[in-house]
């Protein structure tokens, strides 16, 4: 398993979504919300599997920028989860985090 910073960030994103999936799922207000959550989980699942097969060069400027962006987004998600803020906003942020991870995977 990679111990690179990038891999650990990707792993954290997946674990964050997996760990909070059920509580978010029951908070979803519509099928569109649930679909957004399902889709984010599935992409995060595949991203995590793909990350295990990649080698990340942590110091590459583009990767560093995306990692910082991902880290900030994760922190925002955590705050929203703690405060049980609007589900729609939280789901949008989760989708953003997953998209950042997809960009990182595409770079490696």
């Amino acid at each position, binding site marked *: *398993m990679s111990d690179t910073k990038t891999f650990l960030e990707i792993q954290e994103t997946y674990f964050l979504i997996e760990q909070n999936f*059920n509580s978010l799922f*029951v908070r979803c207000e519509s099928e569109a919300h649930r679909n957004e959550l*399902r889709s984010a989980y*599935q992409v995060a*699942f*595949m991203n995590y*599997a793909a990350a*295990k097969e990649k080698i990340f060069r942590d110091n590459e400027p583009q990767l560093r920028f995306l990692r910082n962006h991902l880290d900030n987004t994760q922190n925002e998600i955590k705050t929203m989860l703690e405060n049980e803020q609007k589900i729609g906003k939280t789901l949008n942020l989760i989708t953003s985090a997953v998209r950042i991870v997809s960009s990182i995977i595409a770079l490696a």
Partner: protein
Amino acid sequence: MNVNRKIHTLFVALIALSILLFPGCDRREEGSALATEGAATLEKIAEFYDMLIISTEESRDAESIFRAFTRMPFPPEQQATFDKQASNLRKRAQLARSFSDTFKTLGKLAEYNASAEVKESTTKLAKEIQTLPKMSADSIDPSKIFGMIAGDLMALKQSKDLRRGAVLIRDALSKYQLLFDNEIEVYKGIAVDRYKKFNNVAYWLFHKNLVQSSGLLNPSVSALGLSIDMKKADADPDLMRAVESIARGRAEKMMAVGQMAAHTAQRDLSKLAATVDRFIAKRPFTLSEGIQLTAELQKYLEEIESLRKAKKEE
């Protein structure tokens, strides 16, 4: 030559012979013990991998149930990630068993000249080493780790090669340890993954009231000679919350046991490496050392003899 002198010479010759031969027998016994310990340790490592394969399969099944509860598709390419992990682990279990066989062959080498068996076992090991896939992209490449060791092991033919065999096996073992250490986080991660998946399933089972508390309550209650009104028990939300908490606690314990098993396997490998090291460090007398010792012994006996004579003459 008088009788005493003849006995004296025979005595020296016998001691010299035992100095030269006995350590060889002793080495063979030690070699045999080392082979038994090595084979058993590697078999335990193989069983550890078997356990990880079961955990991976259970994780896949739990994920499948979790997705059914949340009406989320589980397409083949996503299922394949579990199958790939299980397949990589299966190859590691196979490698550990081949390594175990190589230790057994070392044991045969300790008993008799077993060139054909050594060749067969090491050829198998070499083939498996070369085809072992990486656990993840940044794991150490196993074929690079083991290098040409398998080829070197094939050169072993006779029991006199025992120490050389142990040196080669030690080299393979230290590289095997490197592979294990490099992947230990993946192994521990498999236990964490299963725990998370079990937790997800447990959440939905309780959330949808699909759980009967009897499985957890019956053992403690029947020990007191009591029986439970299951209908009332399952309808009691406080009791069901307690049952859920116990179930989650058990899943957590299973995770801890799984993670501990990885460390135990790592420790067993270190212990085996230390045993092989001791075997290598403790070497028998060489022929020249034997001759030197015999000469010193003869000199010592002659001195005693001359002292005896001197005493008699007094």
